[in-house]
């Protein structure tokens, strides 16, 4: 049992998390039990005093003494853990979540070996973290160890941090724990108890004498791996530490929110413009500092009467500067009246992406056009979209279908056009203009009329398709009208009617 790693893990077990996240305004003296799948999984001290225990049937718990039963909210527990992880980022960037499937025991695992100097030692750091959590209203149990699962198990014991803990000290503390702390492996714990193992020390002695293989054989490789991780046992490789996974680094999600309050209510866009500019400049500095970009911002207008109006500004390409967002904001508000006199303006940006600087051809003389849509054109198109709506601008693309109306697609500016025509279409007669829907041609006395008399000039080209649903069979012709207009028409071979579908322009 030796390792070259010098990690130091602090486990924070949130004892009352299932109840804490429910945020019920229940006085602490009121007995409360949290249930899941018709079993009590957590109860407060008042309920415990009345005899309510984990695993009890909810009906029994209710009769035990007017116990309030509330269902468990796992999603709220996860959200609370994520929030706490972001808050504890101030102490260390290496934070992992711990959620048990078998027991309502959740918490966080912090790797603190790299932060000890900053906080002047283990004691000071632990004190600072625990004080922070206590101020936030969390009931926390903690444990220190050289491994993350080891620290979690030691959170069930009570050892004050001294600052001079050694690896051997952690192993001794672990050895003193009962095997029941391995509650995530209920089957293995039962077997261990039957085999006469009472503490983890018994298990450790067995590993020292016979190795992990005997546990892997009897209790499964998963349990053996768990034991290896608790004690940081190197196996399989002569130097396993060289192959160990690095400690994950948490990057907190950062949102931008900034607001301005006005002394007097503002009703005109012209008066709001300086505020728009100021807040967007702050956003630009925020994005620049963190090397981020965003594609979506929100303006929140509010007044003292609690009226709120949220206006979304979206951009096709990620923005790191504020200028284009400012232009888009003005264009959006130019087409949208302010619904009330504004007392406060808030800028929100929840959307953020890392800035990716793509490589480009070195072009000192500016002679070569860069492929793709340039930033300037993209800005122009975004302005037009803001004014006209998303549907007003589009590109066209081919789509794999024999039917002309289905083979033509209108796609968004960000999508890629398909330009590979199947061989049968390469030299087929195709018009430059396509009608959105084929229009029926009148037929009188054996002659065709559509805004004038039509004469067939070339064809037919037969297209048959969709035999697997409603079969389509058409004969396409090039036709000339009286005024020499050239049209693309077809005869539906099922109903024998004629339709115009395109023009040769």
């Amino acid at each position, binding site marked *: 049992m030796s390792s070259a790693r010098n990690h130091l893990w602090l486990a924070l077990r949130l004892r009352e998390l299932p109840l804490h996240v429910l945020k019920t305004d229940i006085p602490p003296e009121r007995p409360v039990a949290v249930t899941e799948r018709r079993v009590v999984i957590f109860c407060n001290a008042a309920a415990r005093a009345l005899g309510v225990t984990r695993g009890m049937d909810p009906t029994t718990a209710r009769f035990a003494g007017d116990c309030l039963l509330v269902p468990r909210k796992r999603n709220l527990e996860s959200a609370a853990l994520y929030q706490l992880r972001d808050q504890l980022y101030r102490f260390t960037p290496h934070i992992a979540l711990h959620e048990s499937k078998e027991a309502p025991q959740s918490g966080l695992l912090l790797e603190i070996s790299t932060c000890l100097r900053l906080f002047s030692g283990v004691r000071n750091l632990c004190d600072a973290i625990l004080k922070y959590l206590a101020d936030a209203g969390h009931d926390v149990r903690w444990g220190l160890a050289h491994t993350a699962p080891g620290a979690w198990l030691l959170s069930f014991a009570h050892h004050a941090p001294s600052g001079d803990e050694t690896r051997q000290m952690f192993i001794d503390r672990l050895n003193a724990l009962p095997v029941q702390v391995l509650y995530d492996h209920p089957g293995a714990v039962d077997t261990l108890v039957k085999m006469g193992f009472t503490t983890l020390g018994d298990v450790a002695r067995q590993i020292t004498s016979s190795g992990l293989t005997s546990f892997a054989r009897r209790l499964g490789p998963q349990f053996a791996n768990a034991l290896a991780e608790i004690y940081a046992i190197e196996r399989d490789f002569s130097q396993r530490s060289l192959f160990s996974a690095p400690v994950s680094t948490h990057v907190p999600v950062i949102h931008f929110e900034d607001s301005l309050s006005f002394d007097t209510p503002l009703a005109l866009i012209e008066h709001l413009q300086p505020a728009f500019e100021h807040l967007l400049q702050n956003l630009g500095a925020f994005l620049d500092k963190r090397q981020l970009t965003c594609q979506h911002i929100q303006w929140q207008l509010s007044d003292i009467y609690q009226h709120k109006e949220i206006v979304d500004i979206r951009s096709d390409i990620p923005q790191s500067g504020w200028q284009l967002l400012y232009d888009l904001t003005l264009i959006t508000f130019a087409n949208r009246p302010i619904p009330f006199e504004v007392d406060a303006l808030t800028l929100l940006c929840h959307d953020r992406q890392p800035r990716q600087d793509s490589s480009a051809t070195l072009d000192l003389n500016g002679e070569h056009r860069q492929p793709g849509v340039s930033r300037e054109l993209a800005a122009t198109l975004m302005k037009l979209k803001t004014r*006209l709506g998303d549907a007003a601008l589009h590109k066209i693309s081919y789509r794999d279908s024999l039917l002309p109306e289905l083979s*033509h697609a209108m796609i968004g500016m960000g999508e890629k056009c398909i330009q590979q*025509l199947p061989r049968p279409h390469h030299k087929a007669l195709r018009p430059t203009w396509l009608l959105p829907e084929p229009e029926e041609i009148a037929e009188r006395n054996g002659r065709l009329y559509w805004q004038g008399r039509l004469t067939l000039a070339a064809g037919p080209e037969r297209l048959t398709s969709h035999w697997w649903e409603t079969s389509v069979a058409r004969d396409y012709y090039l036709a000339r009208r009286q005024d020499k207009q*050239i049209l693309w028409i077809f005869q539906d071979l099922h109903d024998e009617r004629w339709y115009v579908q395109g023009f040769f322009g």
Partner: protein
Amino acid sequence: MSSPPPTLDGILHRQDVWRGRRHQGMPHTGVDSGYALLNAELLHGGWPRGTLIEICQKPFQGDWQLFLPALRVHNQGVIALLNPPAQPFSQAFIQANIDLERLLVINAPDNADFLHCFSEMARSDDCAAMLAWQPRKGLSYSNLRKCLLAATLSNAIHALFRPWAAQRESSPAALRISTKYIDNELEFFIFKQKGILRSRQPQPVRLPLPECWQAAQPYCALDHSDIARNQSAGASALNLKAGT
């Protein structure tokens, strides 16, 4: 501090100075139209850049035939289609070797939106050509003037398609053309070209249409009995044709 007085050479090199018949010294900045006949008629040997070209025609009569060759040769930059009268059919443009990524369709049926889009796209350096179809309400002289001014800001081709009847209206466009189909040809007629003093009445010029658009064979040349024998599925179509 006053600016130095303009020199004669400087004035003569300005593109907006009319020099009567002596336009030989002017820079040839036109974009090859792909038709020698058409290039010969145009002042700069091709479609003029940075100005407004007005084409009066009935709908769909030769719009793409006029500009496709030029757009195919100058294969860089966006081709903006402002208010097109129908959907440009993707298969036809793939066949014509036009990169679909370059084609941008903008629908702005309102006059104010149309002028805004025209100006914005004209200002963009990435726009190689703009083909615009005037809104349903029509454009006034001042609107056309705005389009012309916007077009002069860039070095691209700006074509504005207007109805046939618009020929009778006054327009500030530098080049005004009317086009129509005549049998298997596209006839175009330049009735205004800024910078050229006409000594004679301009004559219409005819450009051939693609061969595949032309009728395969005159109907009178077809053997009726062969058709009846060989084309059972298309019989009704040919019966209709016989009615003509």
